[in-house]
Protein backbone atom coordinates (compact mmCIF):
# COMPACT_ATOMS: atom_id res chain seq x y z
CA UNK A 1 0.00 0.00 0.00
CA UNK A 2 2.82 2.36 0.99
CA UNK A 3 4.52 1.58 -2.30
CA UNK A 4 1.38 2.44 -4.22
CA UNK A 5 0.92 5.76 -2.45
CA UNK A 6 4.59 6.66 -3.00
CA UNK A 7 4.34 5.79 -6.71
CA UNK A 8 1.18 7.86 -7.08
CA UNK A 9 2.78 10.85 -5.33
CA UNK A 10 5.91 10.58 -7.46
CA UNK A 11 3.82 10.42 -10.65
CA UNK A 12 1.76 13.45 -9.62
CA UNK A 13 4.89 15.41 -8.72
CA UNK A 14 6.66 14.52 -11.96
CA UNK A 15 3.56 15.44 -13.98
CA UNK A 16 3.23 18.71 -12.17
CA UNK A 17 6.93 19.50 -12.63
CA UNK A 18 6.74 18.69 -16.38
CA UNK A 19 3.69 20.91 -16.65
CA UNK A 20 5.48 23.65 -14.79
CA UNK A 21 8.57 23.35 -17.00
CA UNK A 22 6.48 23.49 -20.18
CA UNK A 23 4.48 26.46 -18.95
CA UNK A 24 7.78 28.19 -18.23
CA UNK A 25 9.09 27.32 -21.71
CA UNK A 26 5.88 28.64 -23.25
CA UNK A 27 6.27 31.84 -21.25
CA UNK A 28 9.84 32.25 -22.55
CA UNK A 29 8.60 31.95 -26.14
CA UNK A 30 5.71 34.34 -25.38
CA UNK A 31 8.21 36.89 -24.07
CA UNK A 32 11.08 36.59 -26.57
CA UNK A 33 9.81 35.09 -29.82
CA UNK A 34 8.21 37.58 -32.20
CA UNK A 35 8.38 35.46 -35.35
CA UNK A 36 5.31 34.20 -37.23
CA UNK A 37 5.91 30.75 -35.70
CA UNK A 38 5.39 32.10 -32.18
CA UNK A 39 1.83 30.79 -31.65
CA UNK A 40 2.75 27.36 -32.98
CA UNK A 41 5.71 27.10 -30.60
CA UNK A 42 3.70 28.27 -27.59
CA UNK A 43 0.97 25.72 -28.43
CA UNK A 44 3.56 22.96 -28.75
CA UNK A 45 5.04 23.71 -25.32
CA UNK A 46 1.59 23.86 -23.74
CA UNK A 47 0.58 20.53 -25.32
CA UNK A 48 3.84 19.07 -24.06
CA UNK A 49 2.90 20.17 -20.56
CA UNK A 50 -0.64 18.72 -20.99
CA UNK A 51 -2.27 22.17 -21.05
CA UNK A 52 -4.42 21.04 -23.98
CA UNK A 53 -7.27 23.50 -23.60
CA UNK A 54 -4.87 26.40 -23.07
CA UNK A 55 -3.16 25.50 -26.34
CA UNK A 56 -6.37 25.72 -28.42
CA UNK A 57 -6.38 29.53 -29.02
CA UNK A 58 -2.70 29.48 -30.05
CA UNK A 59 -3.20 26.64 -32.55
CA UNK A 60 -6.31 28.36 -33.91
CA UNK A 61 -4.50 31.69 -34.27
CA UNK A 62 -1.55 30.07 -36.03
CA UNK A 63 -3.72 28.15 -38.50
CA UNK A 64 -5.79 31.24 -39.20
CA UNK A 65 -2.70 33.15 -40.30
CA UNK A 66 -0.60 30.37 -41.87
CA UNK A 67 -0.93 27.41 -44.19
CA UNK A 68 2.36 25.76 -43.18
CA UNK A 69 2.08 22.21 -41.93
CA UNK A 70 4.91 20.07 -40.59
CA UNK A 71 5.06 16.75 -38.75
CA UNK A 72 5.22 18.39 -35.33
CA UNK A 73 2.17 20.58 -35.95
CA UNK A 74 0.25 17.64 -37.42
CA UNK A 75 1.00 15.56 -34.34
CA UNK A 76 0.01 18.47 -32.03
CA UNK A 77 -3.34 18.92 -33.81
CA UNK A 78 -4.00 15.18 -33.63
CA UNK A 79 -3.28 15.19 -29.88
CA UNK A 80 -5.66 18.12 -29.44
CA UNK A 81 -8.41 16.35 -31.43
CA UNK A 82 -8.04 13.27 -29.24
CA UNK A 83 -7.93 15.25 -26.00
CA UNK A 84 -10.41 18.06 -26.70
CA UNK A 85 -12.52 16.84 -29.60
CA UNK A 86 -13.62 19.19 -32.34
CA UNK A 87 -12.63 22.26 -30.32
CA UNK A 88 -9.09 22.04 -31.68
CA UNK A 89 -9.98 24.05 -34.79
CA UNK A 90 -13.23 25.58 -33.63
CA UNK A 91 -12.59 29.11 -34.92
CA UNK A 92 -11.58 28.09 -38.42
CA UNK A 93 -14.14 28.15 -41.20
CA UNK A 94 -14.56 25.33 -43.73
CA UNK A 95 -12.71 27.12 -46.50
CA UNK A 96 -9.63 27.52 -44.33
CA UNK A 97 -9.84 23.91 -43.09
CA UNK A 98 -9.93 22.67 -46.69
CA UNK A 99 -6.39 23.95 -47.20
CA UNK A 100 -5.03 21.41 -44.67
CA UNK A 101 -4.81 17.84 -45.77
CA UNK A 102 -4.12 16.02 -42.51
CA UNK A 103 -6.38 13.22 -41.14
CA UNK A 104 -7.43 14.98 -37.92
CA UNK A 105 -8.61 18.13 -39.75
CA UNK A 106 -10.19 16.06 -42.54
CA UNK A 107 -12.26 14.20 -39.93
CA UNK A 108 -13.43 17.41 -38.28
CA UNK A 109 -14.20 19.08 -41.61
CA UNK A 110 -15.92 15.96 -42.98
CA UNK A 111 -18.14 15.72 -39.89
CA UNK A 112 -18.95 19.41 -40.10
CA UNK A 113 -19.89 19.15 -43.79
CA UNK A 114 -21.97 16.02 -43.10
CA UNK A 115 -23.96 17.86 -40.42
CA UNK A 116 -24.56 20.62 -42.97
CA UNK A 117 -25.85 17.97 -45.40
CA UNK A 118 -23.10 18.68 -47.96
CA UNK A 119 -22.66 14.96 -48.49
CA UNK A 120 -20.56 14.82 -51.68
CA UNK A 121 -18.08 17.34 -50.36
CA UNK A 122 -17.94 15.54 -47.00
CA UNK A 123 -17.29 12.22 -48.74
CA UNK A 124 -14.41 13.70 -50.76
CA UNK A 125 -12.82 15.26 -47.66
CA UNK A 126 -13.15 12.07 -45.58
CA UNK A 127 -11.65 10.03 -48.42
CA UNK A 128 -8.37 11.87 -47.83
CA UNK A 129 -7.91 9.95 -44.55
CA UNK A 130 -5.63 6.95 -45.22
CA UNK A 131 -7.14 3.52 -44.55
CA UNK A 132 -4.35 2.77 -42.09
CA UNK A 133 -4.99 5.81 -39.93
CA UNK A 134 -6.78 5.48 -36.58
CA UNK A 135 -9.49 7.94 -37.67
CA UNK A 136 -10.34 5.80 -40.70
CA UNK A 137 -13.02 3.89 -38.73
CA UNK A 138 -15.03 7.03 -38.00
CA UNK A 139 -14.38 8.22 -41.55
CA UNK A 140 -15.74 4.94 -42.94
CA UNK A 141 -18.78 5.14 -40.68
CA UNK A 142 -19.62 8.64 -41.94
CA UNK A 143 -18.83 7.74 -45.55
CA UNK A 144 -21.02 4.64 -45.20
CA UNK A 145 -23.82 6.82 -43.84
CA UNK A 146 -23.50 9.13 -46.86
CA UNK A 147 -23.77 6.20 -49.30
CA UNK A 148 -26.63 4.81 -47.21
CA UNK A 149 -28.50 8.13 -47.48
CA UNK A 150 -27.85 8.15 -51.24
CA UNK A 151 -29.29 4.58 -51.39
CA UNK A 152 -26.02 3.15 -52.70
CA UNK A 153 -26.30 0.16 -50.44
CA UNK A 154 -23.49 -2.04 -51.78
CA UNK A 155 -20.94 0.73 -51.19
CA UNK A 156 -22.50 1.54 -47.82
CA UNK A 157 -22.24 -2.10 -46.73
CA UNK A 158 -18.57 -2.28 -47.72
CA UNK A 159 -17.75 0.83 -45.74
CA UNK A 160 -19.71 -0.29 -42.66
CA UNK A 161 -18.13 -3.75 -42.73
CA UNK A 162 -14.68 -2.22 -43.08
CA UNK A 163 -15.36 0.04 -40.10
CA UNK A 164 -16.62 -2.86 -37.92
CA UNK A 165 -13.63 -5.03 -38.82
CA UNK A 166 -11.03 -2.36 -38.03
CA UNK A 167 -12.77 -1.34 -34.82
CA UNK A 168 -12.73 -4.96 -33.71
CA UNK A 169 -8.98 -5.17 -34.37
CA UNK A 170 -8.40 -1.97 -32.38
CA UNK A 171 -10.67 -3.20 -29.61
CA UNK A 172 -8.57 -6.34 -29.22
CA UNK A 173 -5.20 -4.62 -29.43
CA UNK A 174 -6.07 -1.29 -27.79
CA UNK A 175 -4.80 -0.30 -24.41
CA UNK A 176 -6.90 1.47 -21.81
CA UNK A 177 -10.41 0.62 -20.75
CA UNK A 178 -11.98 3.84 -22.06
CA UNK A 179 -10.38 3.50 -25.47
CA UNK A 180 -11.45 -0.14 -25.73
CA UNK A 181 -15.00 0.85 -24.85
CA UNK A 182 -14.96 3.49 -27.58
CA UNK A 183 -13.82 0.94 -30.17
CA UNK A 184 -16.52 -1.49 -29.01
CA UNK A 185 -19.04 1.31 -29.45
CA UNK A 186 -17.76 1.99 -32.98
CA UNK A 187 -17.75 -1.71 -33.88
CA UNK A 188 -21.33 -2.16 -32.68
CA UNK A 189 -22.52 1.02 -34.38
CA UNK A 190 -21.10 -0.18 -37.71
CA UNK A 191 -22.52 -3.69 -37.21
CA UNK A 192 -25.98 -2.27 -36.49
CA UNK A 193 -25.69 -0.10 -39.60
CA UNK A 194 -25.09 -3.24 -41.67
CA UNK A 195 -28.25 -4.79 -40.23
CA UNK A 196 -30.23 -1.62 -40.96
CA UNK A 197 -29.14 -1.67 -44.60
CA UNK A 198 -30.38 -5.28 -44.75
CA UNK A 199 -33.76 -4.18 -43.39
CA UNK A 200 -33.90 -1.36 -45.96
CA UNK A 201 -33.18 -4.03 -48.61
CA UNK A 202 -36.00 -6.15 -47.14
CA UNK A 203 -33.58 -8.93 -46.12
CA UNK A 204 -35.09 -9.22 -42.66
CA UNK A 205 -33.74 -12.65 -41.69
CA UNK A 206 -30.19 -11.59 -42.54
CA UNK A 207 -30.67 -8.42 -40.51
CA UNK A 208 -31.85 -10.40 -37.48
CA UNK A 209 -28.81 -12.65 -37.69
CA UNK A 210 -26.56 -9.57 -37.60
CA UNK A 211 -28.44 -8.06 -34.64
CA UNK A 212 -27.82 -11.31 -32.75
CA UNK A 213 -24.11 -10.38 -32.65
CA UNK A 214 -24.82 -7.49 -30.27
CA UNK A 215 -24.35 -8.49 -26.66
CA UNK A 216 -27.25 -7.94 -24.28
CA UNK A 217 -24.94 -6.01 -21.94
CA UNK A 218 -23.98 -3.61 -24.72
CA UNK A 219 -24.78 0.08 -24.45
CA UNK A 220 -26.40 -0.16 -27.89
CA UNK A 221 -28.62 -3.13 -27.06
CA UNK A 222 -31.72 -1.25 -25.83
CA UNK A 223 -31.80 0.70 -29.10
CA UNK A 224 -31.73 -2.36 -31.35
CA UNK A 225 -34.89 -3.80 -29.80
CA UNK A 226 -36.93 -1.40 -31.89
CA UNK A 227 -34.97 -2.18 -35.08
CA UNK A 228 -35.49 -5.90 -34.49
CA UNK A 229 -39.18 -5.36 -33.80
CA UNK A 230 -39.51 -3.67 -37.21
CA UNK A 231 -37.77 -6.66 -38.87
CA UNK A 232 -40.20 -9.08 -37.21
CA UNK A 233 -43.10 -6.81 -38.11
CA UNK A 234 -42.19 -6.96 -41.79
CA UNK A 235 -41.74 -10.74 -41.48
CA UNK A 236 -45.35 -10.68 -40.24
CA UNK A 237 -44.30 -12.15 -36.93
CA UNK A 238 -46.39 -9.66 -35.00
CA UNK A 239 -46.20 -11.60 -31.75
CA UNK A 240 -42.40 -11.25 -31.66
CA UNK A 241 -42.71 -7.56 -32.56
CA UNK A 242 -45.08 -7.15 -29.61
CA UNK A 243 -42.75 -9.06 -27.31
CA UNK A 244 -39.85 -6.78 -28.23
CA UNK A 245 -41.72 -3.51 -27.95
CA UNK A 246 -43.19 -4.45 -24.57
CA UNK A 247 -39.61 -4.83 -23.27
CA UNK A 248 -39.32 -1.03 -23.12
CA UNK A 249 -41.85 -1.11 -20.31
CA UNK A 250 -39.47 -3.12 -18.16
CA UNK A 251 -38.19 -1.22 -15.08
CA UNK A 252 -34.61 -1.79 -16.27
CA UNK A 253 -35.32 0.19 -19.42
CA UNK A 254 -37.56 2.84 -17.92
CA UNK A 255 -35.28 5.69 -18.97
CA UNK A 256 -35.60 4.69 -22.65
CA UNK A 257 -38.56 6.53 -24.13
CA UNK A 258 -39.41 5.28 -27.57
CA UNK A 259 -42.65 6.77 -28.87
CA UNK A 260 -42.08 4.83 -32.09
CA UNK A 261 -42.22 1.55 -30.13
CA UNK A 262 -45.76 2.45 -29.03
CA UNK A 263 -46.79 3.03 -32.64
CA UNK A 264 -45.26 -0.27 -33.69
CA UNK A 265 -47.05 -2.07 -30.86
CA UNK A 266 -50.38 -0.61 -31.94
CA UNK A 267 -49.64 -1.50 -35.58
CA UNK A 268 -48.83 -5.10 -34.59
CA UNK A 269 -52.16 -5.44 -32.79
CA UNK A 270 -53.84 -3.83 -35.77
CA UNK A 271 -52.30 -6.40 -38.13
CA UNK A 272 -53.54 -9.18 -35.86
CA UNK A 273 -56.98 -7.56 -36.24
CA UNK A 274 -57.12 -7.02 -32.48
CA UNK A 275 -58.81 -3.63 -32.76
CA UNK A 276 -59.52 -3.18 -29.06
CA UNK A 277 -55.94 -3.89 -28.03
CA UNK A 278 -54.63 -1.54 -30.70
CA UNK A 279 -57.08 1.14 -29.56
CA UNK A 280 -55.89 0.77 -25.96
CA UNK A 281 -52.29 1.38 -27.04
CA UNK A 282 -53.36 4.44 -29.06
CA UNK A 283 -55.31 5.87 -26.12
CA UNK A 284 -52.45 5.13 -23.75
CA UNK A 285 -50.05 6.93 -26.10
CA UNK A 286 -52.11 10.11 -25.90
CA UNK A 287 -52.70 9.93 -22.16
CA UNK A 288 -49.07 9.08 -21.40
CA UNK A 289 -47.07 11.20 -23.84
CA UNK A 290 -49.24 14.32 -23.95
CA UNK A 291 -48.44 15.33 -20.32
CA UNK A 292 -44.79 14.45 -20.92
CA UNK A 293 -44.61 16.69 -23.98
CA UNK A 294 -46.37 19.48 -22.06
CA UNK A 295 -43.96 19.17 -19.11
CA UNK A 296 -41.00 19.33 -21.48
CA UNK A 297 -42.42 22.29 -23.40
CA UNK A 298 -42.91 24.12 -20.11
CA UNK A 299 -39.38 23.46 -18.89
CA UNK A 300 -37.95 24.45 -22.29
CA UNK A 301 -39.99 27.64 -22.41
CA UNK A 302 -39.04 28.71 -18.90
CA UNK A 303 -35.31 28.18 -19.42
CA UNK A 304 -34.80 28.83 -23.11
CA UNK A 305 -32.45 31.75 -22.48
CA UNK A 306 -30.39 30.08 -19.79
CA UNK A 307 -26.96 28.76 -20.77
CA UNK A 308 -26.57 26.56 -17.72
CA UNK A 309 -30.01 25.38 -16.48
CA UNK A 310 -29.96 21.94 -18.10
CA UNK A 311 -26.33 21.31 -17.22
CA UNK A 312 -27.08 22.30 -13.62
CA UNK A 313 -29.86 19.69 -13.61
CA UNK A 314 -27.24 17.10 -14.39
CA UNK A 315 -25.12 18.23 -11.43
CA UNK A 316 -28.11 18.80 -9.15
CA UNK A 317 -28.20 17.07 -5.77
CA UNK A 318 -30.53 14.06 -5.33
CA UNK A 319 -33.11 16.18 -3.48
CA UNK A 320 -33.50 18.68 -6.35
CA UNK A 321 -33.65 15.84 -8.85
CA UNK A 322 -36.36 14.09 -6.85
CA UNK A 323 -38.49 17.23 -7.10
CA UNK A 324 -38.32 17.08 -10.88
CA UNK A 325 -40.90 15.39 -13.02
CA UNK A 326 -39.76 11.70 -13.06
CA UNK A 327 -39.97 11.76 -16.82
CA UNK A 328 -37.51 14.68 -17.10
CA UNK A 329 -35.24 12.92 -14.63
CA UNK A 330 -35.25 9.83 -16.83
CA UNK A 331 -34.65 11.86 -19.97
CA UNK A 332 -31.54 13.38 -18.39
CA UNK A 333 -30.43 9.84 -17.46
CA UNK A 334 -30.87 8.78 -21.08
CA UNK A 335 -28.92 11.81 -22.34
CA UNK A 336 -26.08 10.93 -19.97
CA UNK A 337 -25.65 7.68 -21.87
CA UNK A 338 -24.83 9.46 -25.14
CA UNK A 339 -21.18 9.33 -26.19
CA UNK A 340 -21.03 12.98 -27.26
CA UNK A 341 -22.47 14.14 -23.95
CA UNK A 342 -19.91 12.09 -22.01
CA UNK A 343 -17.02 13.32 -24.14
CA UNK A 344 -18.09 16.93 -23.69
CA UNK A 345 -18.54 16.38 -19.98
CA UNK A 346 -15.07 14.85 -19.76
CA UNK A 347 -13.72 17.86 -21.70
CA UNK A 348 -15.40 20.23 -19.24
CA UNK A 349 -13.86 18.44 -16.28
CA UNK A 350 -10.42 18.38 -17.94
CA UNK A 351 -10.63 22.11 -18.73
CA UNK A 352 -11.59 22.88 -15.12
CA UNK A 353 -8.71 20.76 -13.82
CA UNK A 354 -6.36 22.58 -16.17
CA UNK A 355 -7.55 25.93 -14.86
CA UNK A 356 -6.97 24.73 -11.29
CA UNK A 357 -3.45 23.65 -12.25
CA UNK A 358 -2.75 27.04 -13.82
CA UNK A 359 -3.97 28.81 -10.72
CA UNK A 360 -1.57 26.74 -8.64
CA UNK A 361 1.49 27.90 -10.66
CA UNK A 362 3.81 29.97 -8.48
CA UNK A 363 5.12 32.49 -10.98
CA UNK A 364 2.15 34.53 -12.11
CA UNK A 365 2.58 36.95 -15.01
CA UNK A 366 0.61 38.48 -17.86
CA UNK A 367 1.04 35.24 -19.86
CA UNK A 368 -0.57 33.05 -17.15
CA UNK A 369 -3.28 35.71 -16.72
CA UNK A 370 -3.94 35.49 -20.45
CA UNK A 371 -4.10 31.69 -20.27
CA UNK A 372 -6.55 31.81 -17.35
CA UNK A 373 -8.75 34.28 -19.18
CA UNK A 374 -8.82 32.05 -22.27
CA UNK A 375 -9.56 28.97 -20.21
CA UNK A 376 -12.42 30.72 -18.43
CA UNK A 377 -14.08 31.48 -21.73
CA UNK A 378 -13.37 27.94 -23.00
CA UNK A 379 -15.06 26.49 -19.89
CA UNK A 380 -18.12 28.67 -20.30
CA UNK A 381 -18.24 27.73 -24.00
CA UNK A 382 -18.14 23.98 -23.24
CA UNK A 383 -20.80 24.44 -20.51
CA UNK A 384 -23.18 26.23 -22.85
CA UNK A 385 -22.45 23.62 -25.54
CA UNK A 386 -23.50 20.78 -23.21
CA UNK A 387 -26.50 22.79 -22.06
CA UNK A 388 -27.52 23.33 -25.67
CA UNK A 389 -27.04 19.63 -26.37
CA UNK A 390 -29.50 18.61 -23.60
CA UNK A 391 -31.93 21.29 -24.79
CA UNK A 392 -31.71 19.94 -28.34
CA UNK A 393 -32.29 16.37 -27.12
CA UNK A 394 -35.47 17.49 -25.32
CA UNK A 395 -36.61 19.43 -28.37
CA UNK A 396 -36.02 16.42 -30.65
CA UNK A 397 -38.00 14.25 -28.26
CA UNK A 398 -40.99 16.63 -28.32
CA UNK A 399 -40.86 16.59 -32.13
CA UNK A 400 -40.79 12.79 -32.07
CA UNK A 401 -43.93 12.72 -29.95
CA UNK A 402 -45.70 15.10 -32.33
CA UNK A 403 -44.60 13.11 -35.38
CA UNK A 404 -45.90 9.87 -33.93
CA UNK A 405 -49.09 11.50 -32.68
CA UNK A 406 -49.91 12.00 -36.35
CA UNK A 407 -49.25 8.29 -37.08
CA UNK A 408 -51.39 7.31 -34.12
CA UNK A 409 -54.19 9.60 -35.27
CA UNK A 410 -54.25 7.93 -38.68
CA UNK A 411 -54.20 4.51 -37.05
CA UNK A 412 -57.06 5.48 -34.76
CA UNK A 413 -59.18 6.52 -37.73
CA UNK A 414 -58.37 3.25 -39.43
CA UNK A 415 -59.26 1.31 -36.29
CA UNK A 416 -62.58 3.11 -35.92
CA UNK A 417 -63.35 2.36 -39.54
CA UNK A 418 -62.49 -1.35 -39.09
CA UNK A 419 -64.58 -1.57 -35.93
CA UNK A 420 -67.52 0.02 -37.75
CA UNK A 421 -67.15 -2.47 -40.60
CA UNK A 422 -67.16 -5.31 -38.07
CA UNK A 423 -70.33 -3.95 -36.53
CA UNK A 424 -72.00 -3.72 -39.93
CA UNK A 425 -70.89 -7.23 -40.77
CA UNK A 426 -72.03 -8.46 -37.34
CA UNK A 427 -69.07 -10.41 -36.11
CA UNK A 428 -69.25 -9.82 -32.38
CA UNK A 429 -68.72 -13.51 -31.52
CA UNK A 430 -64.99 -13.24 -32.21
CA UNK A 431 -64.48 -11.19 -29.09
CA UNK A 432 -65.40 -13.93 -26.69
CA UNK A 433 -63.48 -16.61 -28.47
CA UNK A 434 -60.06 -15.03 -28.37
CA UNK A 435 -57.28 -17.38 -27.55
CA UNK A 436 -54.65 -15.25 -25.83
CA UNK A 437 -51.25 -16.78 -25.38
CA UNK A 438 -51.19 -20.14 -27.06
CA UNK A 439 -47.74 -21.44 -28.00
CA UNK A 440 -49.21 -22.61 -31.30
CA UNK A 441 -49.21 -18.99 -32.44
CA UNK A 442 -45.49 -18.47 -31.92
CA UNK A 443 -42.87 -18.62 -34.62
CA UNK A 444 -39.56 -19.79 -33.29
CA UNK A 445 -36.19 -20.74 -34.71
CA UNK A 446 -33.87 -23.28 -33.09
CA UNK A 447 -31.46 -20.52 -32.16
CA UNK A 448 -34.13 -18.33 -30.62
CA UNK A 449 -35.18 -18.17 -27.02
CA UNK A 450 -38.81 -17.79 -26.22
CA UNK A 451 -40.41 -16.46 -23.08
CA UNK A 452 -44.10 -15.79 -22.91
CA UNK A 453 -44.90 -12.44 -21.40
CA UNK A 454 -47.08 -12.78 -18.32
CA UNK A 455 -46.94 -9.19 -17.14
CA UNK A 456 -43.67 -9.50 -15.22
CA UNK A 457 -40.16 -8.74 -16.45
CA UNK A 458 -37.11 -10.91 -15.78
CA UNK A 459 -33.69 -9.48 -16.63
CA UNK A 460 -32.42 -12.59 -18.46
CA UNK A 461 -35.62 -12.81 -20.51
CA UNK A 462 -35.50 -9.23 -21.82
CA UNK A 463 -35.42 -9.12 -25.59
CA UNK A 464 -36.79 -12.66 -25.99
CA UNK A 465 -40.43 -12.14 -25.15
CA UNK A 466 -43.07 -13.11 -27.64
CA UNK A 467 -46.80 -12.83 -27.42
CA UNK A 468 -48.86 -15.83 -28.49
CA UNK A 469 -51.94 -14.07 -29.76
CA UNK A 470 -54.12 -15.60 -32.42
CA UNK A 471 -54.82 -13.37 -35.33
CA UNK A 472 -58.45 -12.33 -35.58
CA UNK A 473 -58.19 -11.52 -39.26
CA UNK A 474 -60.59 -13.60 -41.29
CA UNK A 475 -58.35 -13.82 -44.32
CA UNK A 476 -54.80 -15.18 -44.32
CA UNK A 477 -55.10 -16.32 -40.72
CA UNK A 478 -52.34 -18.83 -41.17
CA UNK A 479 -50.04 -16.31 -42.76
CA UNK A 480 -50.35 -13.69 -40.03
CA UNK A 481 -50.11 -16.11 -37.15
Amino acid sequence: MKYLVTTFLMATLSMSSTAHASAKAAFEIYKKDHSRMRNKRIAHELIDGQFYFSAIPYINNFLEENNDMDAELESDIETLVVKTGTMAVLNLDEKKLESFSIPSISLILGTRLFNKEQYDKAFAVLSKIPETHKFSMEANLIKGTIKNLQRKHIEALNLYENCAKKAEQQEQSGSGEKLKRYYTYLKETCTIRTARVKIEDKKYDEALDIYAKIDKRSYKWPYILLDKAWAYYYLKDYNRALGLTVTYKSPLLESYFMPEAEVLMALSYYNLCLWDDAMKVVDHFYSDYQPKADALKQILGQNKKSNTYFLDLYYADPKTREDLNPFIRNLITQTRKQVKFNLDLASLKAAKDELALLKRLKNKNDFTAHLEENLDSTISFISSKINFYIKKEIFTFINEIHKHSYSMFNLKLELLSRKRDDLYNAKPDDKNDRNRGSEQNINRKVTQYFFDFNGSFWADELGDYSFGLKSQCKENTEETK
Partner: protein
Amino acid sequence: MRLIIILLILAFSSTLEAEEKKNTVYKYKEYEVIDLGSMEVKGQIIAPGDLTVNERERKVFKRSLLEKNNFDFENKREIENLR
Protein backbone atom coordinates in the same frame (compact mmCIF):
# COMPACT_ATOMS: atom_id res chain seq x y z
CA MET B 1 -77.08 97.56 -77.92
CA ARG B 2 -76.30 94.27 -79.58
CA LEU B 3 -75.35 92.76 -76.30
CA ILE B 4 -78.68 93.77 -74.74
CA ILE B 5 -80.61 92.17 -77.59
CA ILE B 6 -78.66 88.90 -77.29
CA LEU B 7 -79.24 88.76 -73.55
CA LEU B 8 -83.00 89.37 -74.02
CA ILE B 9 -83.22 86.54 -76.59
CA LEU B 10 -81.44 84.15 -74.25
CA ALA B 11 -83.68 85.02 -71.31
CA PHE B 12 -86.81 84.56 -73.41
CA SER B 13 -85.76 81.11 -74.72
CA SER B 14 -85.00 79.71 -71.19
CA THR B 15 -88.46 80.83 -69.96
CA LEU B 16 -90.05 78.91 -72.83
CA GLU B 17 -88.13 75.72 -71.99
CA ALA B 18 -89.24 75.85 -68.33
CA GLU B 19 -92.88 76.17 -69.40
CA GLU B 20 -92.53 73.15 -71.74
CA LYS B 21 -91.13 70.93 -68.89
CA LYS B 22 -94.00 71.79 -66.61
CA ASN B 23 -96.52 70.52 -69.14
CA THR B 24 -94.89 67.05 -69.71
CA VAL B 25 -96.99 64.08 -68.40
CA TYR B 26 -95.30 60.69 -67.96
CA LYS B 27 -97.41 57.55 -68.19
CA TYR B 28 -96.38 53.98 -67.31
CA LYS B 29 -97.80 50.64 -68.40
CA GLU B 30 -100.25 49.45 -65.82
CA TYR B 31 -99.51 45.70 -66.50
CA GLU B 32 -97.87 43.43 -69.02
CA VAL B 33 -98.75 39.85 -69.84
CA ILE B 34 -96.02 37.36 -70.80
CA ASP B 35 -97.30 34.18 -72.39
CA LEU B 36 -94.74 31.55 -71.39
CA GLY B 37 -96.49 28.88 -73.41
CA SER B 38 -95.89 30.66 -76.62
CA MET B 39 -92.20 31.24 -75.94
CA GLU B 40 -89.80 29.13 -77.87
CA VAL B 41 -86.04 28.52 -77.52
CA LYS B 42 -84.27 27.63 -80.69
CA GLY B 43 -81.37 25.05 -80.57
CA GLN B 44 -80.53 21.35 -80.11
CA ILE B 45 -80.95 19.31 -76.93
CA ILE B 46 -77.56 17.86 -76.01
CA ALA B 47 -78.25 16.63 -72.40
CA PRO B 48 -78.51 12.83 -72.03
CA GLY B 49 -82.00 11.56 -71.85
CA ASP B 50 -81.06 8.69 -69.52
CA LEU B 51 -79.98 9.94 -66.07
CA THR B 52 -79.22 6.58 -64.40
CA VAL B 53 -75.69 6.07 -62.89
CA ASN B 54 -73.66 2.93 -63.52
CA GLU B 55 -73.05 0.89 -60.40
CA ARG B 56 -69.46 0.94 -59.18
CA GLU B 57 -67.57 -0.20 -56.10
CA ARG B 58 -67.34 2.39 -53.37
CA LYS B 59 -63.85 3.87 -53.02
CA VAL B 60 -62.21 2.87 -49.77
CA PHE B 61 -59.68 5.46 -48.61
CA LYS B 62 -56.64 3.92 -47.01
CA ARG B 63 -54.88 6.11 -44.50
CA SER B 64 -51.11 6.04 -44.58
CA LEU B 65 -49.93 4.08 -41.56
CA LEU B 66 -46.38 4.32 -40.30
CA GLU B 67 -43.82 2.53 -42.46
CA LYS B 68 -40.14 2.15 -41.69
CA ASN B 69 -38.50 2.38 -45.09
CA ASN B 70 -35.17 3.64 -43.84
CA PHE B 71 -33.20 4.58 -40.75
CA ASP B 72 -32.01 7.98 -42.01
CA PHE B 73 -33.18 9.86 -38.94
CA GLU B 74 -31.43 7.50 -36.49
CA ASN B 75 -28.29 7.29 -38.63
CA LYS B 76 -27.92 11.06 -38.90
CA ARG B 77 -28.42 11.50 -35.17
CA GLU B 78 -25.75 8.93 -34.45
CA ILE B 79 -23.22 10.91 -36.48
CA GLU B 80 -24.22 14.10 -34.69
CA ASN B 81 -23.57 12.29 -31.41
CA LEU B 82 -20.27 10.79 -32.48
CA ARG B 83 -17.94 13.50 -31.19
